């Protein structure tokens, strides 16, 4: 099990490549491949799909930085925009929201009417599974756990991350990697062939991830800000009901019909 973090990959492969950036880059490449394969399978060959991708990247890049910006009600306590952009945390949840908004704006601008959620869902799931390996190797793993499978940090790493040394910590990023890998398998090998409602696999994926993330936050080790909840949990507390409400509304309209599978 891990005992130290790896800010660069030098100890593993001998080249000082930033670990986090490397795995996020790998995740983006993997996600792009899955996106292209699925787009071809579903016949999304229109040139305008490139603008949709651009919208996702723009929204994701901007919101993942700004998602953690307004943390204090007293605005003077928040970082300036430039400081936030250069030094601030990057938020996966903020990135997902930004990408979703960016896609909708881009589709409206270029007049692309086909639903694209089915292209993004498996791509995002696999990309996140790969990208989270970078987080696992560089970030605070989680809160202390009494079990033996936790990550125990050495003294130097623990001091740098602000975690207790010699105490097993929840491998919260391993939980996430497993979740996204399973989600990708379900989406890729089952749901995308059976769900007849276009674009809805992304809704299911985001709802599942939101609920999963809400519970993982209890062992993630993020700052608790209100009523025992972290900032991501407060955000999810508002957004999960919206997604679930949408699913319930669509279900009442009879949108979620699974395609019949022939049994030989």
């Amino acid at each position, binding site marked *: 099990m891990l005992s130290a973090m790896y800010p660069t990959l030098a100890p593993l492969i001998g080249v000082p490549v930033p670990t986090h950036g490397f795995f996020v880059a790998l995740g983006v490449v993997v996600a792009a491949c899955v996106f292209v394969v699925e787009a071809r399978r579903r016949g999304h060959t229109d*040139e305008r799909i490139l603008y949709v991708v651009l919208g996702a990247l723009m929204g994701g890049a901007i919101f993942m930085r700004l998602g953690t910006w307004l943390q204090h009600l007293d605005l003077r306590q928040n970082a300036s925009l430039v400081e936030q952009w*250069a030094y*601030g945390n990057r938020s996966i949840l903020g990135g997902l929201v930004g990408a979703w908004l960016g896609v909708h704006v881009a589709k409206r601008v270029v007049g692309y009417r086909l639903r694209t959620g089915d292209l993004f869902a498996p791509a995002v799931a696999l990309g996140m599974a790969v990208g989270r390996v970078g987080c696992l190797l560089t970030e605070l793993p989680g809160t202390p756990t009494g079990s033996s499978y936790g990550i125990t940090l050495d003294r130097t790493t623990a001091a740098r991350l602000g975690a207790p040394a010699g105490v097993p910590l929840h491998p919260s990023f391993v939980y996430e990697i497993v979740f996204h890998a399973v989600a990708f398998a379900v989406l890729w090998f089952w749901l995308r062939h059976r769900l007849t409602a276009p674009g809805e696999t992304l809704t299911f994926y985001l709802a599942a991830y939101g609920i999963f993330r809400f519970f993982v936050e209890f062992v993630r080790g993020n700052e608790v800000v209100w009523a025992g909840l972290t900032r991501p949990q407060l955000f999810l507390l508002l957004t999960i009901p919206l997604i679930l409400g949408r699913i319930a509304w669509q279900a009442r309209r009879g949108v979620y019909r699974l395609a019949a599978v022939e049994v030989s």
Partner: protein
Amino acid sequence: MSQPPYQPPGQPPGPPPDPPPEGAGWPTPLPATPAKKPKAPLLAGMLIGAVAPWFFSLVPLILTNGNTAAGYGLYAWVLVPLAGIVLLLVPKTRRWGLGVLIGFFGMLIIGAGACLTIVVGLNASGGFS
């Protein structure tokens, strides 16, 4: 003396029959497929969008041993996306602009935040004013 019109062998005399109505066995021409647009501007644009900010930030910094020039190189982080937008607005360079913007924002997602911090941090000791 006028020649009789050429009659192909095996055909009944008289003018050729009218073609049957559409869909009665005659092969219909395939719909014209739109010409494939070149991928090179898109890919080259992506490369430029992802690399140019680094180039203009780091090269002056290295050449001047971390001195003041890097401060101007940092403007590339604003100018590259602006250039991408301008290219996108001009029909002839639209795919270049699309590529530049995809490369730039993709690079931002991959991890420019941390690296930009390094550039700004290095520059701080070299004087930004």
